[in-house]
């Protein structure tokens, strides 16, 4: 399904349009006037969608890891590992955009009281270990099999880190957590929403597109290696 999807053009055109829309209209749209947050609220269109993109790519990593385990097709392993690579980049971008936002609104680059910050840093560690694991094998088949098993655990822990732990922790500075109002409370005329939802699709599309390019690159590289 991934490979069929990768060859289609319509969603790539849609992604370009949505990214342009996000980057242009995201800076033009009328925003609610809030103290402290002020113009930094526009980061909502960049910071939050990064996590959605990461979740999508890590989900692909999980699904294609399981597919590899069930049929042993090396192409599935390529899809799984390249998705995780882009997913990790998306996660790092999410941390960076979040850190910039934290500096503006909370006054520090890194805040301990913020459970989501620490949990997402841990999630990035989990997926860094995935690549360390892959790097420690010379045999391709073992590498694919062991990293597929690891990615199942990694996804479970990723979900616990970003969905369960922030919910049960009582201290959080994020909107919508720890008794703070969510953004819906401010977004009375749905202006934010009109950019936010397209932005989520846009960055998910970019992540997916990048991963398909990386998959293609890997296949070309392997063909070249076979010739040489």
């Amino acid at each position, binding site marked *: 399904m991934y490979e069929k999807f990768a060859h289609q053009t319509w969603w790539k055109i849609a992604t370009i349009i949505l990214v342009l829309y996000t980057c242009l209209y995201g800076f033009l749209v009328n925003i609610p006037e809030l103290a402290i947050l002020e113009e930094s609220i526009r980061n909502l269109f960049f910071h939050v969608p990064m996590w959605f993109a990461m979740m999508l790519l890590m989900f692909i990593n999980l699904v294609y890891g399981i597919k590899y385990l069930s049929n042993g097709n090396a192409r599935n392993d390529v899809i799984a590992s390249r998705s995780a690579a882009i997913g990790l980049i998306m996660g790092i971008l999410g941390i960076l955009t979040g850190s910039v936002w934290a500096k503006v609104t909370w006054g520090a680059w890194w805040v301990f009281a913020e459970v989501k910050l620490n949990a997402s840093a841990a999630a990035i560690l989990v997926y860094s270990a995935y690549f360390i694991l892959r790097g420690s094998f010379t045999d391709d088949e073992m590498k694919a099999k062991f990293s597929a098993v690891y990615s199942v*655990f990694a996804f479970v822990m990723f979900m*616990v880190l970003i969905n369960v732990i922030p919910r049960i922790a009582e201290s959080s500075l994020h909107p919508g957590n720890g008794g703070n109002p969510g953004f819906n409370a401010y977004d009375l005329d749905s202006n934010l929403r009109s950019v936010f939802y397209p932005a989520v699709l846009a960055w998910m599309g970019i992540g997916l597109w990048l991963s398909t390019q990386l998959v293609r690159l890997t296949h070309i590289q392997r063909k070249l290696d076979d010739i040489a």
Partner: protein
Amino acid sequence: MNVGRILWLVKKEAALEWRNRSALTSMLVYVIGASFIVYYAFEGHITFQVWSAIFWIIALFSAINTIGKTFDKEVTQRFYYLRTVIPPVELILSKLIYNAFLVFIFELVIFAEMSLFFGIQVENTPIFLLTLLLGGVGISNLFTLFATITARTGNVVLLSVLGFPIILPLLLLILRLTGLSDVEVLADDRWSNVGAVAALDAITLVLSVVLFPYLWSE
């Protein structure tokens, strides 16, 4: 699946451990030595938060050292023999039961040791013992499966590199639960935490049993 054979494997594991007690005694000395260092470093006084952090760090390292060696013997000489006589599901279940038991024993030893040095810090002992049990099961589930990976690669450092990030969510939940065993809190808040740890234990158990056969094939 043959329950009798699983129990027999657990017994075999314990008998092997007991026959060569060097691993057990070295772990015991490590645990006592580590808590003794902490006792000296803090000059005998410690807050509950520090106590629980140190408790779980010592427990984690003793677990990773013991469980890391789980498959050492199997991978070298007996790998092919075991593969022909025992279904992988029974093998992993016996390892999980044995390792959970071992980790729980170590936790109890550390608890006794730290209570001797710092006095009993835990207000609600039954809840703390439950935390120890659930934590031990979770730690053993995760580390046992990853010990297979490190045994097959022969890379010992890999277990801590893979194990520590992946155990973090579980450890955060356990630390929270340990914190709740100190103060009087709302009972349902505590039980939702117990539930979260128990659910994670169940998930990791199922995943270990389902995924182990893939690691155990050639």
